[in-house]
């Protein structure tokens, strides 16, 4: 194809999009250079942002897994997945608070040595949150999505939006609208220092737990029979049914797994940000969705990478890109960065960072 021919085929909208994209890129680079040259922040501070980004991103990634798995199998966005996460965090709060009062998380050590009792306490919290989120996710599938399988696209999407609001306000009605503050776990308070860099213990715990869960899930899906059933149903429902796979059951399992990951994310979020309220699922939900799209929706390792990438981008972004341009209080614009990124990815690379494998299969 000659150059002139290619130019002729270009339509106006594409040109406009490339111009907007180019402008944004220009400002990002300009802002970054200026921020770094200005030297307001020390390397240790940049490192802090980076580490914070990783632990925040690993929470996004855990939630993103729920979106991506459900999308892979049903080709629909489970809009209410953020609320599954919220339900886990908010319901478990009451247990955490009760445990805290009995000294499970501090050196009063009601259950023997602090380490043991904290470990026990956290494991119970994880178990309860996983159970709650899983239940909500499975109920959601059973009540709201299963009857609509095969309906036109818009229908389950609207149902999901409705379910999202219903769950949010159910939580508000049941547990009240105040902001609940999670207990401060003694053992997670300190920092680890390497030379001039230091990392908070809680951030290490969050990132390690999340990454371990993700690897576990990946292995589960790749190695076990149930996991392979999920992959098969995602590939072709009818063929899977003919091979003797119970499609309904597999879909329920997918929702349950996504719910479990959201439950883990809920507790990680709770120990990192130490708060829970009925609206907490909305923004992380959209961010996690962005992460899923970023990694290529339907793709499990993609969701993990996407989450980490988004977390780092969001944590570094405001200071790196905007501060240098002389914009006031850039941190208020954190969400704008994430959303803009979502829009840009969907326009320029809808298959996500590592989406080729998926698109080849599905196209």
């Amino acid at each position, binding site marked *: 194809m000659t150059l002139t021919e290619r130019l002729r085929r270009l339509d106006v909208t594409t040109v406009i999009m490339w111009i907007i994209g180019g402008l944004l890129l220009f400002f990002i680079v300009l802002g970054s250079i200026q921020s770094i040259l200005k030297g307001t922040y020390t390397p240790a501070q940049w490192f802090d942002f980076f580490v914070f980004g990783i632990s925040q991103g690993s929470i996004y990634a855990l939630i993103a897994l729920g979106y991506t798995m459900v999308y892979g199998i049903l080709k629909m966005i489970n809009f209410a997945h953020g609320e599954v996460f919220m339900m886990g965090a908010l319901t478990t709060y009451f247990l955490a608070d009760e445990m805290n009062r009995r000294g499970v998380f501090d050196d009063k050590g009601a259950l023997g040595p602090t380490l043991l009792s904290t470990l026990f306490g956290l494991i119970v919290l994880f178990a309860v949150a996983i159970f709650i989120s899983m239940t909500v996710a499975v109920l959601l599938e059973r009540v709201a999505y299963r009857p609509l399988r*095969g309906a036109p696209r818009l229908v389950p999407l609207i149902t999901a939006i409705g379910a999202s609001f219903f769950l949010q306000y159910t939580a508000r009605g*049941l547990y009240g609208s105040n902001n609940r503050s999670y207990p401060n776990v003694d053992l997670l308070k300190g920092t680890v220092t390497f030379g001039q860099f230091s990392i908070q213990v809680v951030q290490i715990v969050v990132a390690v737990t999340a990454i371990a869960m993700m690897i576990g899930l990946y292995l589960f899906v790749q190695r076990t029979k149930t996991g392979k059933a999920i992959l098969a149903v995602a590939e072709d429902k009818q063929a899977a*049914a003919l091979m003797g796979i119970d499609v309904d059951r597999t879909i329920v399992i997918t929702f349950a797994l996504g719910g479990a990951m959201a439950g883990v994310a809920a507790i990680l979020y709770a120990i990192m940000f130490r708060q829970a309220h009925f609206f907490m699922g909305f923004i992380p939900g959209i961010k996690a969705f962005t992460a899923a799209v970023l990694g290529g929706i339907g793709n499990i390792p993609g969701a993990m990478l996407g989450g980490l990438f988004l977390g780092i981008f969001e944590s570094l972004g405001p200071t790196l890109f905007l501060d240098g341009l002389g914009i006031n209080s850039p941190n208020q614009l954190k969400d704008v960065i994430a959303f803009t990124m979502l829009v840009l990815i969907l326009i320029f690379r809808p298959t996500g960072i590592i989406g080729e494998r998926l698109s080849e299969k599905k196209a």
Partner: protein
Amino acid sequence: MRQRAQGKSPLRRAIDVGLIGSIPALLLALVGMVDAFSNRYLLEESVSTGQVMLAVVALIVGYLAARRISLPAQTVATKIGYGAVAGLMVGLVLALLLFIGEVVGINLRKVLVNASPALYEILAFNQAPAVGMLLLALMGTLLGALGGALFVMPARLRSAIITGITVIILLALLRDIVKLVFQQYEPTTALYRFLFTPNGGLTKIGLLLAFLLPAAADYVWSAGRPTLDRRYHALPDGTQKSVRWVGLAVAFILLLLFPTIFGRFPSEAMNNVILLGIMMGLGLNIVVGFAGMLDLGYVGFFAIGAYTMALLTSPQVGGGMNFWTALPFSLLASMIAGIILGIPVLKMRGDYLAIVTLGFGEIIRVLVLSDALRPWFYGAPGITGVPAPNVGGMLLNNPETLYYLLIAVMGLTLFISLRLRDSRLGRAWMAVREDEDVAEAMGINLVVTKLMAFATGATMAGLGGAIFAAKLGSIVPQTFNLLISVNALAVIIIGGMGSVPGVVVGALLLIGLPEVLREFAEYRLWVYGALLVAMMLFKPEGFWPDEGHRRELTEHDPEETPQAPGPADPPLPPGTVRDRAAVARADIRATHTEDEAGLDE
């Protein structure tokens, strides 16, 4: 799942239906709705709307149990019995809540904030807990049986009874409006005293009348309607037309007299219905209903319209224009925003589109709220001093006069919507909605068509926003949250996607009712969420559907529904409503597949 259900005895199934049905009842009680409505009395000072809510659940559960379980051959008593058993279960579950909270004395309130002593009192009918529990079981059984009886009785009688019950509940819910209207004139005030107690509940006679009159009217109407219909259609065409015109004229005159008849407070409510419900709904209806693109960032355009208006007119920020000169700029700004948003999302599919537009709406709010753009948009405190719209020399600064402006604008948007729907562009939108690829193959320019939908919808939202700013006199960024988009979405879903009259119905229900129900404010989104799910599950075409769209939404694509290996659906008793619906759907499905097969050859 279904196999197991078939193996159960009918009694077990009735119990199951009752237990599932008790979940909504429990939720209603525990999210605090029952308590919130406990001051709205239905009958004197004894029965509150909070209790009625639970009663309606039991009634519906009884009806559904009878419908799902009973076989046509069974006796009437058995059918009612199933209803009673299911209703009893609802009563028992609520009694259990009472038992745990009051008798055992576990403080549920630590976790469930609304499990308060007040709630227990309502549940126990203000009696001792033990008596209350017995009463709950008894009432549950009675209401369940009544629900079962509703299923058994002839359709005409059922419809009459349901109408009567609805009217009573509406009277209780709308007591403030009812009171206001009645007390405007001398003779009606006397009537009001006769029918209502001072706290707004009906007297015993009032209750009886409020039930019997509408019920009787419904009964007579359903008897006489076929004859009336026949007579009407037998009239010559010209006469039919003039009858319709007379009807429209009467409706129009009533609409114009609304502020005079009802006064200030209802006018204000009506203004919000028109502005936030009808106008926003009509605009979103073009994007979602006609063109089939789910736009959740609709509030963004509303905000742009409002901010443009405020920035140009408010003397506080150096505006100084008047409403009418600023209005075109508002419309233009939101239209351009619509196109700008439209371009990047042109190639996106439904669900991506929803999230991206949602993100767009949030971006606008966050930007306006941010300190970075404070010099231009004045940040969190917003802008005050926006002048009211003026007509000639008169400022429309009270609800009664503003009402006329809104009616005029509403008429205009309704007219535009209807004309667009029937235009070439409208048909192109619907073609794109049904199938993009086919539409493109038929020569529809997707880019132009979709952008036109976005631009038109955005302009209508901008119009709404501009009037909103002028109406309130001040705007704060926090107003422009997702809630406004969801409101508009719920309105068009209830009315029926793509249906213009449906938008009006939906707006009256979803915006009008909460306007006059103060207690409802807190539960608004809870109910909207539940409604969206319930509508999609049971009535995806809405309450006032657009003919063409109805079939598309109820018809399931046979290719995308893999039948899990298992036994075929058990035969339903012939003649039940569900059965007929299923047959109709199967018919549609059959013709659909035939068509496709024909295409393949």
